[in-house]
């Protein structure tokens, strides 16, 4: 598909206008969006060719020449640290004859050499040369600079590595918009930051990437039924998941969102009547955020603004997303011994065709989290999230069914509904920016995700 075609195309082959797949008036989305091949090809250009995409964490490649292989849409990229410490993202396609240049999932190499004809590249993607230099096997029509691997634009935020193919598009800060204030509370709150607890879990399922991604945009409602077991096993939901449906959802038209949940009850359980008189510092020490030990509390006080600290100790963000395909989880999981363990995970839902996606699950902890706590977090994260995670195994069994359904000639005309609209609005004295909705979880965050999707899909440049 040529750039010209994809840039100007505003209708699918059957005449359907792309912008009409999402009915803005009625807040409905045609299910065919989960199975349409033509739409998928356009998404690869207009979303995965443009947006900032999560590729990993800088602690996966701590040393010069370290690299990992990752994906931006269906394009495989080499994420590598160069000699000078800078992180580079290069398309893993040899400009000579199209062979994959790098074939190990991770490693440390000063030179990436294509096994096919031996063209060689530095970790920053620069073309070194080919055998035999004297015979000029790369010719003289192209300069060596022109023969480098195609480079993506990179940013590192809170240690997370993001890249985009859009060299002149919005900066990562602009891409985050006013939601950055909340993400800073999660990713930029300690002196030494987060680290991965190992390479990511990876598995492929027969589902469209959007089935998973629109859910990650803070769908709190599904917890009540899909994750009902949390209420059935004593200790997790205390038998009543409905109360945990109340909170504050923050979101923006850029498609990002977070669900913040009230801690008031937990403080009452721990501190009783004195709960309302606790200072921010006392609250942080009593109930530290995921992965934060009591000793690290002063770091939070240093790195966050008073309003952010207030939120972190009353209504902290727990789960949410970053458009287009990243899930964020900073959740509190009650333990059998009555304590609460905080878990940190991020996922990328990577497209692998209209009906397939790869689930990539990174588990994280603060670098300064004491080792025993890190190990406890790691194990509990494996029990709850990802491949065998008792929570997420139910999610990953749902998305393939939605995707399968979306193929039927009648089914595809059914619409996804986002008509549960918050009527409470912004909580009084809410200190944070962006849209904020108080009360029972509603559809506003996911609807913003679809509006952002629509914006990307209809913007012709």
């Amino acid at each position, binding site marked *: 598909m040529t750039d010209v075609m994809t840039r100007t195309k505003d209708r699918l082959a059957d005449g359907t206008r792309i912008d009409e797949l999402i009915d803005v008036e009625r807040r409905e989305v045609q299910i065919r969006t989960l199975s349409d091949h033509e739409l998928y090809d356009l998404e690869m250009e207009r979303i995965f060719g443009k947006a900032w995409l999560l590729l990993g964490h800088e602690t996966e490649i701590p040393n010069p020449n370290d690299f990992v292989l990752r994906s931006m849409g269906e394009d495989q990229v080499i994420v590598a640290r160069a000699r000078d410490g800078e992180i580079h993202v290069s398309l893993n396609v040899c400009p000579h004859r199209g062979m994959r240049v790098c074939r190990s999932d991770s490693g440390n190499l000063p030179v990436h050499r294509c096994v096919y004809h031996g063209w060689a590249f530095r970790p920053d993607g620069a073309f070194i*040369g080919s055998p*035999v230099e004297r015979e000029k096997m790369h010719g003289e029509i192209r300069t060596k600079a022109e023969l480098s691997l195609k480079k993506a634009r990179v940013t590192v935020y809170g240690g997370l590595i993001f890249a985009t193919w859009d060299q002149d598009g919005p900066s990562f800060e602009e891409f985050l918009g006013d939601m950055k204030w909340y993400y800073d509370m999660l990713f930029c709150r300690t002196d030494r930051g987060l680290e991965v607890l190992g390479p990511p879990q990876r598995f492929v399922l027969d589902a469209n990437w959007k089935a998973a991604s629109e859910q990650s945009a803070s769908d709190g409602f599904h917890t009540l039924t899909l994750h009902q077991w949390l209420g059935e096993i004593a200790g997790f939901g205390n038998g009543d998941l409905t109360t945990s449906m109340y909170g504050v959802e923050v979101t923006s038209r850029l498609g990002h969102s977070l669900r913040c949940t009230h801690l008031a009850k937990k403080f009452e359980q721990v501190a009783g009547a004195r709960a309302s008189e606790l200072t921010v510092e006392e609250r942080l020490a009593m109930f530290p955020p995921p992965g934060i030990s009591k000793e690290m509390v002063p770091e939070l006080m240093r790195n966050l603004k008073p309003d952010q600290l207030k939120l972190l100790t009353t209504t902290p963000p727990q789960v949410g997303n970053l458009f287009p395909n990243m899930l964020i989880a900073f959740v509190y999981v009650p333990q059998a011994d009555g304590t609460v363990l905080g878990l940190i995970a991020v996922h990328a839902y990577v497209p692998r065709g209209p009906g397939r996606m790869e689930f990539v699950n990174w588990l994280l902890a603060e670098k300064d989290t004491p080792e025993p706590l890190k190990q406890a977090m790691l194990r509990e994260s494996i029990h709850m999230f990802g491949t065998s995670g008792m929570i997420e195994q139910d999610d990953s069994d749902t998305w393939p069914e939605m995707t399968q359904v979306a193929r039927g000639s009648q089914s595809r005309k059914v619409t996804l509904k986002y008509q549960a609209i918050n009527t409470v609005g912004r909580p009084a004295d809410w200190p944070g920016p962006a849209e904020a909705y108080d009360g029972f979880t509603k559809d506003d965050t996911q609807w913003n995700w679809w509006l952002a999707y629509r914006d990307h899909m209809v913007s012709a440049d």
Partner: protein
Amino acid sequence: MTTDVAAQKSTLRVVADRGSCCGYGVCAEICPEVYKLDEAGLIVLDSDLVPPGLEEKAREGAESCPQAALRLELIEV
């Protein structure tokens, strides 16, 4: 690194595996003082000892070999 080497009164020796060399010529491009190419474009050394002051360049040249045909050894003099 250079000062360490001097202090230890040791020097670097190049071990070149001509069988692996594919004539990329990257080594000769980075450190022509140490790495030479023959008529076929393959690695040859006038001397396998790295002259003082060229340690870093020689190391970079060896590290950049796409065939990993060059290795540096620390030897006592």
